[in-house]
């Protein structure tokens, strides 16, 4: 398949460069956040399940969000 570098939508030069920079930073933050959650989860498990997210959520937005956070997106 023809792999055009930029799609038919103009992505904006600045937006692409900015995105590369920001996404790198964000992935580092996600890494540390997940590490922190794991550590907290380790301590929390025997006592209170504070690291667990609320269940029984019906708002599709938040259900999607919850599923999102269980996706490989947050996998360390």
């Amino acid at each position, binding site marked *: 398949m023809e792999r055009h570098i930029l799609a038919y939508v103009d*992505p904006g030069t600045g937006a692409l*460069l900015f995105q590369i920079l920001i996404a790198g930073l964000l*992935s580092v933050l996600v890494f540390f956040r997940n590490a922190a959650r794991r550590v907290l989860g380790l301590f929390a498990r025997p006592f209170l399940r504070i690291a667990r997210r609320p269940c029984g959520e019906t708002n599709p937005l938040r259900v999607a969000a919850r599923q*999102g956070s269980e996706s*490989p997106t947050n996998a360390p």
Partner: protein
Amino acid sequence: MSPVVPPAADPRAASFRDPAGFVYRREGVLYRQVQHSGREAYDRLMAGGLYDELVQAGLLVPHEEAPLSLAASEGAYKVLRPREVPFVSYPYEWCFSQLQDAAAATLEIQRRALARGFWLKDASAYNIQFLEGRPVLIDTLSLEPYPEGRPWVAYRQFCQHFLAPLALMSRTDVRLGQLLRVHLDGIPLDLASRLLPWRTRLSFSLGIHLHLQARVAARYADREVPRERIEGRMSRRALEALMDSLGSAVRRLRWRAGSTEWADYYAAGNNYAPESMADKERLVGGMIEEVRPRVVWDLGANTGRFSRLAAARGAFTVCWDADPSCVEENYLRTKRAGECNVLPLWTDLTNPSPPLGWAGAERLSLADRGGDVDLVLALGLVHHLAIGNNVPLPRVFDFLAGLGRAGIVEFVPKQDSQVKRMLSVRQDVFADYHREGFERALSARFRIERAVPIQGTCRTLYLVRRLGA
């Protein structure tokens, strides 16, 4: 559901940008042509399980493959017949939560796509429509194989179409959602950045995705950047982190429908004792049963109390209102109740959605999208147009006759408290605004089938059929 998009309208007017395919109508049926350039993407989408997953999750509009002989032009690889949405609405007609749900659906599609080696090559809010009360992607060809290492080409578009208007509606003023009517490719980030309160710079996600991006984009606006600085520079993990951040930015924004005059109208018991309200509901319900409409437009629907009388009788009902709080409350109600055939939308009927975009034909006007609906409800509406907006009664009924074949129209006389209040601080220049004048103007466009007073009020309900309909 029969299409509400009129056969005369050529939907190609809105789908000329993507070289991979386009939509068109043939004998009233909507088709999507996949060009040979979109072949690999389409085949992999169908074979790899992503299409099935998204359709099952209610996130993508389903389609059937149609014979190639139905193609509209040369270069066709496939002809698809997608399930048609009953009414095409536009982001500038959505309330806050509708836009937020559309944004969340876009990100959820992107998340599921990435997990299967795909991504969205664009993130236009116009690619999302409401089908059975839920936001779905209608542009099947937006999904293409994920080119590893590339930054998301639709990042800026997502911010302009979704994040910026949501932030403005939530943090500045909900009416700024109407900026989408002027800026069809989303609100420019520099404009959003200027209009947002200063403190939003301190918000991590809005600070990054709107304010900082606007500044960087301005700096690089006229620079040429070598491909090597872009290609292969963004890992999948970085892309997923970006999506994660956009998701939390969208979710964190909140707008609570304020207690406006109209959102509280019924609760405040305005003009209606409970018995009168019950009588009006009984009368309107009976009239709807007489017309047996498949498609109803409720104009000035407030929170959809009477729209639901039509929906309960099986009609697909579009509820138009000018008050964003009413539309928000109405939409949240459809979500809570899982209602499939009620679509609340936001427009000011004194200035309804015009035709917009390239050649004035990319986005259709409100009237052009209606075609000719079976029944129009104008309950507690005409006095607002005639007295509140000084529109002569004949013109009001011309407008209604242009929208639908039948109508249920309420006459609210000058002695009604609502009209008295409207006239309390202004000169009464409405000499023809009385029952006879109302009926005379109405009869010029419609045949009056029934006129029934509403118990305990001075108001009258008319069931009318358009002359020649």
